[in-house]
């Protein structure tokens, strides 16, 4: 049920959408496993929501991957990270690794879109009546606002969202592996 509009304080997502644009050769299987294992290590549940393979065009096939990861932190809020991968103009190429083994990698263009947000009241128990919905607005605005703003969102933004962004870039060899700043946000 919709609450009255007068004090409606919606919890907004903490981060804007981040993008990675890549052109070259990459290992799609490795990227998938890497992202999935990163989420499972950090107690997220990882879902592969969609996989659309479009009819090949003149430059190669086009594929859409939609992934989603969720983590219920406490009973009231959860982190949700959505990843949209768009690969196009791709073709399989055989590469020779440093140890002499041969692998099939993907050559083409990759477009990754990352969205992260903190979802409050994910079970929807405060939406049973208009009174509860307004109570939730009050609760957001005056009781947990500081905590959400300074703890939940920051944690989501720096420890989950930006970290994943830099890790994917590192995996695609877009930046040096010794990037020390990825360890700065969390000492332990």
């Amino acid at each position: 049920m919709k609450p009255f509009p007068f004090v409606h304080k919606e919890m907004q997502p903490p981060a804007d959408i981040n993008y990675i644009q890549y052109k070259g050769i990459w290992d799609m299987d490795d990227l998938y496993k890497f992202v999935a294992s990163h989420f499972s290590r950090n107690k997220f549940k990882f879902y592969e929501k969609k996989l659309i393979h479009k009819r090949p065009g003149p430059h190669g096939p086009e594929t859409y991957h939609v992934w989603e990861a969720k983590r219920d932190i406490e009973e009231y809020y959860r982190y949700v990270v959505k990843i949209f991968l768009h690969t196009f103009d791709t073709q399989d190429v055989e590469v020779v690794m440093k140890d002499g083994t041969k692998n099939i990698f993907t050559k083409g263009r990759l477009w990754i879109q990352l969205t992260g947000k903190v979802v409050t009241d994910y079970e929807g128990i405060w939406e049973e009546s208009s009174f509860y919905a307004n109570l939730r607005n009050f609760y957001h605005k005056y009781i947990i606002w500081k905590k959400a703003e300074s703890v939940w969102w920051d944690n989501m933004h720096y420890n989950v969202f930006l970290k994943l962004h830099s890790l994917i870039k590192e995996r695609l060899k877009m930046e040096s592996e010794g990037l020390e700043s990825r360890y700065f946000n969390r000492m332990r």
Partner: protein
Amino acid sequence: MTELRLTVDHLRLSYNGPFDANELYRNITSLLKEKGFDLETQKEFEHHTKDGKQIEWQLRPWKQISDNLRYLIKIRILISNYNKVDAVIDKKKVKIGSGKAEVYLDGYADLDQHNRWEYNPFLQFLRALYNNFIYKIYTERFEQRLTYDAHHLYNYIEQTFNMYKHYHVVSKVAPFAHTTN
């Protein structure tokens, strides 16, 4: 569902080298008992593979603080490729264990243990008011104590593994790189 406040989030410790798994278990349980925790073992598996033993322990020690509040620490220990190797201790040849260990720690403060404030959102709202304003100083202090206990346990496990003797060259491995991933 009670109000479980996540206070210590996924402390991770990774170690590869010689250690005694029984001693590790004994040290953890003795420290927890010393701190007044009651132990609950949730998982205790051991698989024998050709590379060595794979051991998984999951402990859930808890400590009652007040009528409504208790601490919960979730300890998950994963040991892989655990084998006995020869070593020299005090000029004597002995057999000790060696393998890879990963330890995960999570700390939760259970603020409504008996679910008395769970019946409807209005009561949950009152509970939030109570925890955030009326009882705020105590709630925060209890959370600090739990954080302290969890980090103490973490340091104690590090000492058990004797990790302070291992050094990483900063130019090759970023500081604390072994604890974050």
